Structure formats: C-alpha cells, structure tokens
C-alpha cells in the first residue's frame, strides 16, 4: 500500500505541517510513503483553511488543514485505509 503526501506551498502556515507527516511515518512504518498528489491514499497537508494542497483528483484521500493531535491523525488515516 502506498501513501502519497501532498503539501500546500506553506506560505503562511497556521501550524507545523510536518507534524502530520511525522505522525504518519511513525504509525504506518510498513507503508510506502512518498511525495505526490496521486497514490493509493493521498494525504493532503494544507497549512490553513484555504486548503491549497487539495487537488480534487484523488479517489481516496485525507485532507488536513489545521492542527490535530497524533491520535486524531492516526484515526483519520486508519478510517480512510479501512475503506480499501
């Protein structure tokens, strides 16, 4: 299973976006994680509610656009993965 990560440009991020990626890499060590806007599951990481990272082409995706705790991030990713 491949998880793609797509960041927005980070022009004025309202929280540390890298934290989402760190949590994913830590909690899903057996997945291939790479940077792209297409993959089995795409995780869009936007720095604010403008949501610039989001591209409406992915079939399965999770979009983060504000600060979330580790538990919540993992829960959302697992929920998306469970739909496969």
């Amino acid at each position: 299973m491949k998880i793609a990560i797509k960041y927005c440009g980070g022009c004025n991020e309202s929280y540390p976006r890298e934290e989402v990626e760190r949590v994913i890499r830590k909690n899903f060590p057996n997945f291939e994680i790479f940077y792209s806007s297409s993959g089995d599951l795409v995780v869009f990481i936007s720095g604010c509610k403008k949501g610039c990272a989001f591209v409406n082409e992915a079939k399965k995706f999770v979009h983060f656009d504000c600060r979330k705790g580790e538990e919540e991030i993992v829960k959302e990713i697992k929920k998306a993965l469970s739909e496969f």
Partner: protein
Amino acid sequence: MMSGKEYIESLRKLKPKVYFMGRRIESVADDPITAPHVNAAAMTYELALDPRYEDVMTATSHLTGEKVNRFTHIHQSVEDLVKKVRMLRLLGQKTGSCFQRCVGCDAINALYITCYDIDRKYGTDYFERIKEYVKYVQKNDLMPAGAMTDVKGDRSKRPGQQVDKDLYVRVVEKREDGIVVRGAKAHITGAVNSHEIIAMPTRALGADEKEYAVSFAVPVDAEGVTMIFGRQTNDLRRLDGDMDCGNAKYATVGGEALVIFNDVFVPWERVFMCGEYDFAAQLVEVFATFHRQNYGGCKVGVADVLIGATANVAEMQGIANASHVVDKITEMIHLAETCWCCSLACSYEGYRTPSGAYMPNPLLANVTKLNITRFPYEWSRLAQDITGGIVITLPSEKDYRNPETRDLIEKYMKGVAEVPTEQRMRMIRLVENLSIGAELPESMHGAGSPQAQKIMIARRSNLEMKKEIARIIAGIKHDEHFRRIRGVSEEEFFAKFK
C-alpha cells in the same frame, strides 16, 4: 533546478568585477560581506526542491512544459500571480531578509509583455528573443538581476539634456552583431550574486531620446561591467561574529550595488528594445506593477519575523501579558496583514495581456507599495517601543565573549530568570536588524519612491467616474435607477415633501 548549494557553486564559477570598501571582492559567494545575501538568494533555490514548499516555489513552463523555479516563470494565470506573492511571503519568513530574485522575475515578465507589443507595432523580433532568453534562464535556473534605475544626474533635466550623456544608460554604437552600451544603474538588488543583469529604461522617453530606449541582458562578468557594492548601516558587524548583526545568516535587504556598463557589447539576441522610445513608459509601468505587487508578500514575511521577535522579547522581559503590549503586537499584525490583503487583491484582480502573460492590477499594486512606504515604519516603531532602549544600547558580542566582562553581562542583561541572557541578546539584535537601518529606506524607495506610486494611483483611479457618481447621488444628475425603484422621477417624488 539547482539546489541552494549548487547555486552557490555556480556563483564561484563567475568572475564579476565587484568592489567594496576599497578592495575587490574575489568571491561573492564566500566574502563575509556578500555571503549572507548569497545565502538569502540560495533559499529561493533550496525551497523549490522541498516537497513542503514546491507548490508555490515551482511552476510548469508554458514554453517547455518543464518544471521550473517560479522565479523564472512567465505568469500564465491569476493563480500564478497569487502563488508568486505566497512564495514571497514564505521566503520573507524563511530569511527575514530580501532574497533578491523577484527583480529578475519581474524583468522577464515585463519584457515578455512589452516585447510582444513592440513587435506588433514595429514588426521586430524582440518577442522571440525574450522567449529564447526565458528558456535559457529556465533551463539553467539562472538568477538575473533587474536593473532599471539610472543614476540620473541633474533630476531637472531629461536624459539627453544632461551635461554628461552617460548618466542614463544608452546605446553608444550599433554593430552588425550587436550594440555597445554605456552608463550606470543604481542600487541594483542582488546584482553581485546574480548570473545575469537585465537592463531596462528608467522613464518615459521622447523621440529625441531613442539612444536611451534600450533593454538588454548580459552576464554579470561581461567585459566592461563593474559593480560597486553599497554600504549599509552596521554592515561591518558581519566581521564581528554572528550576534551583533541580528540576522547574520541572511543579512538585511538585498545587498544593492552600483552597476556600471563601460562600453559593454551586447549581441542582438540579448537586446529586447533598441530605439522604440514609445514603449519605454510601458516597460517601466509593467515592471513597476509586478514589482510593487511583491511588497505585501516579501515585506509581510519579514514583518512576520519581526512580530515574532518582538513577541519573544516581550516574553523574555516579562511584559508579554501587559495589555498595551498585547495591543501593540496586535496592531503590528493588523498592519502587516493589511499589506498582505493588498498583494493578494492586486494579484486576484490581475488580467491576461495580449502576449498571453498575466499581470497584476496596476492600481492595486501601487496601493500595495504605497502602504509599504508607510506601514513598516509604524510596525518598526511599535517593535522598538516594546523592546525598549536596549535595542540601541546592548553590549557587543565581543564584550559578551570577553572573560573580563562576560559574567557582568550575563548578570545584568538578564530578563526573566528562565531565559538565558544570550538568547535575549540575540532576539534584541534581531529586532534591531529588522526595525533600524536599511530595511526602512528600502521599504520607502524599493520598487519606486512614494510619489511614483501616487502618480500611478492618480492616473489609474478613474476620478471622473467618482465625480460623476457623486453628481448623481447629490441630485445634480439624473439617477436612472431611482425611477425604477419608486415609479416616479426624483422631481416628482420630492415635490410632495416641498
């Protein structure tokens, strides 16, 4: 695309003739005076390769289909214009300084639009030349410096009226294979650490001033190009360690230079205007519009750093919760975000030009820049207010490092107990760097002095329309909507109240 490190390596291969304080700078990439500016420009390269930032830092070239650094891109949409200012705010936040590369970006975009229009009128081939040049810049990920401001001599006289005709850059010889140019451009941002220099006229020109209607690109180390790096407030602190500068890594503003063209040969393929005096004003206005668009991006990114530094100092000095401090920091944020609104607005109101390239709304771009000639002075005043007199009386790093005085400084320069003295000193120095010195006059004069923006605003504001709508509201002129709303004319409606 090059990385930051590869950009620095690329500079080491060039041999520009650069002077500073009576000596020649042998390596711009390595000299302590110029290296911090190089580092700031390198950030424009480094972030383009980072997946966290590539969405704003890169674009797809409409000329080659290749992924390119956005600074080499010709804007193809309103979204491109918006992404440009997003990129600039990001880089302001990452460097706390000027990263210089926008000027060349604005120059290629302004030339792209203007060359197209010149060709349509005169049947010249400048548009093909600029397209080929942009491809060259994109392929090699180059940083061209944009050079517009002539030294101007006696400001009451036009270029051709000067006692010394070289006070505006001009063509002194036309050859079969190119032209020879002479003159000088003043305060050119990033010139010494660019790969190329793009020269453009500085003002509207008349039919008798064709020799001054010239635009061209040359390598920075072309034969006959000499650069004299300008002094900045506190510039020699760069030789005294890393604390006293405040921003030792990335310096302050762009590292401007006087660029002299002493009979420099330019091959025809690098000439983008030669005698078309009636397009000089357009080139200046389009370039100015692009450049004035920028300032609510980059300066606001730098303001983000200053606001953060001021808030840190307030915490380090135990005043963060004082209501007036909270109010003043909020005011700084309000001022900065107002400028950000302006940059976004002029970008979102941008439009397609006949060349296919997009440009920002000129009126709103000039409003953006005019605000930047004012608001940074106020947010800097507030930063100095909160920081206190220590912003100009702090002991030096050398005294801090001196064993004889170190303990005294540690003890008496302490703020709140839990913050190390050195951290407080570093933060105060950062406030000093960002609020005193070159940063403020750069806000005033970069991309043109305030009166230049006032002239553009006056020209573009459609005052006649405003007068007309006032006449209608005042009841002096017929109001076509009123009859539809009330079913009777204004005269009939108000007659019953008289």
